[in-house]
């Protein structure tokens, strides 16, 4: 320590130049480490072929009223549900009830296509696949932690924070949808 102090005394304003070298060297090292580290972190993100998973088309004529098809899209289940008049009526009737993630039934399906409810079949709590027909609200019930969704896929009870997600989709024709 004594030697360092002596050097400082002798060289007057030298410490500032030395500080500069220290800071510059440390910054370069930190920057270098960060630049080197990033590829090793980013390699865990979805790879090109995973991202390239294209949209899928689905023929609705296979799903009769009151039934549901489960389609795999981007590794996840998508529910294609052909709702009955009773299910639609229940969903609309509940529009103004207090909900955790309020949404009108009309915003959950395409205009004029209220019988077709298309949802990502992944519980917004911790990702399990809910089952239709059980639970208190006529819709889906998640077996993992007991979240209950109504016939519009809205969260009504249990720990999930959000409604079942509506994926991007469009009607290619009256009987065909393109998901994604």
């Amino acid at each position, binding site marked *: 320590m004594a030697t360092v102090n002596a050097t400082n005394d002798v060289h007057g304003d030298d410490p500032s130049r030395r500080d500069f070298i220290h800071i510059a060297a440390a910054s370069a090292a930190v920057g270098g480490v960060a630049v080197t580290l990033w590829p090793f972190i980013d390699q865990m993100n*979805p*790879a090109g072929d995973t991202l390239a998973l294209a949209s899928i088309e689905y023929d609705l004529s296979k799903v009769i009223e009151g039934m549901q098809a489960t389609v795999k899209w981007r*590794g996840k*289940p998508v529910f294609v549900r052909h709702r009955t008049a009773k299910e639609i009526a229940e969903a609309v009737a509940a529009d103004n009830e207090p909900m955790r993630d309020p949404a009108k039934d009309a915003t959950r399906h395409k205009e004029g296509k209220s019988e077709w409810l298309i949802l990502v079949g992944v519980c917004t709590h*911790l*990702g*399990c696949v809910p089952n239709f027909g059980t639970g208190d609200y006529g819709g889906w019930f998640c077996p993992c932690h007991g979240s209950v969704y109504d016939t519009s896929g809205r969260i009504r009870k249990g*720990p999930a924070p959000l409604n079942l997600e509506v994926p991007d989709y469009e009607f290619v024709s009256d009987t065909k949808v393109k998901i994604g």
Partner: protein
Amino acid sequence: MSGHSTYEPKTGIERWLDARLPIIRLGYDSVIAYPTPKNLNYWWTFGGILSVCLVLQIVTGVVLAMHYIPHGDLAFASVERIMRDVNHGWMIRYLHANGASMFFLAVYVHMARGLYYGSYKEPREVLWILGCVIYLLMMATAFMGYVLPWGQMSFYGAVVITNFFSALDQVIPGLGSAITTWLWGGFAVDNPTLNRFFSLHYLLPFVIAGVVGLHIWALHVPGNNNPTGVSVKSKDDVVPFHPYYTVKDGFAIVVFLILLSWFVFFAPDALGHADNYVQANPLQTPNHIVPEWYFLPFYAMLRAVPQKLAGVLIMFGSIALLFATPWLDWAKVRSMRYRPTARWFFIIFIVAVLILGWCGGKLPDDVIIPMGKNPDGSPTGFSVVHLSRILTAYYYAYFLLVLPFVKNFEQTLPVPDSISAPVLTEKKG
């Protein structure tokens, strides 16, 4: 390691090596001459048992990796091949799977012993924290290992656990999803997830072995705690580790291996779930998913809270409390042997954790005490989720209220002057 070494190299080769790499000296000082309190009971044998568990898991795991294929389409079949076709594969896999359960059983006893006898208190805080780190690593390793057979429970276990991070979406929108996508390497748990879990499952046991080395180092500096909690004061209080504790630990290890063998050979699937013999199906969740038994208390805490982020925080917080324990216990007396009030709170704590484990295996809405009926006729009343809430509250209260404050209301029993003192008095009486 503490104190000066008593190792004397006897042969020329030993002297030659000792001057260059004193590794025999290290071994001699650590497991032969190491001065150990002479009053350690059988609760102290679980450290040795845990070392055996770690070695068993690494050896069986390395062998399994020679036959296992980490691919979404092939993993399940490769595990079945290990069970049916690989020579002794069934035994090695059952040893690995049940070995994991026994590992947790031993670590829970080891932790409970530390909590009861105050082994986390000054000067062993670092020792305790390193133990908590090992426990966290064990949980991560066990979780990723459970995913590898790619059965239904494997798959949905991976889905639920990785989705814990999606709760961060409620703090910063998008953050949680970004993390889960990064963990999965896709938009759902899939082949990339299985691949990386296999890689990490192979790596982490060696990290654990490294931290175990630090744990033992941190043990050998202050030396063992003991059932009285009184520090070692003289040579009369200690005996050399060998042969006294090599023999005692050895006996306990044999008894423990009998228990493991009973599971492996007579009830190999008793601790598992039948659903995991069904190949993973991303489109259909099994009707009742539960984690392995050693995670059930935490699972019950998660479900006790009807809000996603809060549930996840309560669950992780329960483990964070363990890390803070050395600074939460304000009582001067180490061992609960001399703390009649704290001892009762401790016993209730153990029972509470066990019942939480039971709750974790039930459905949240299962009714325990029926009080009336729902409109549809199903019973309603005091349910598993209510019980879980009470027990979770007690778990937290134990660390945040009992440990710091119970000393204010407690009349401690007389603590012996030294480890030898009570032994000598008992002999006289």
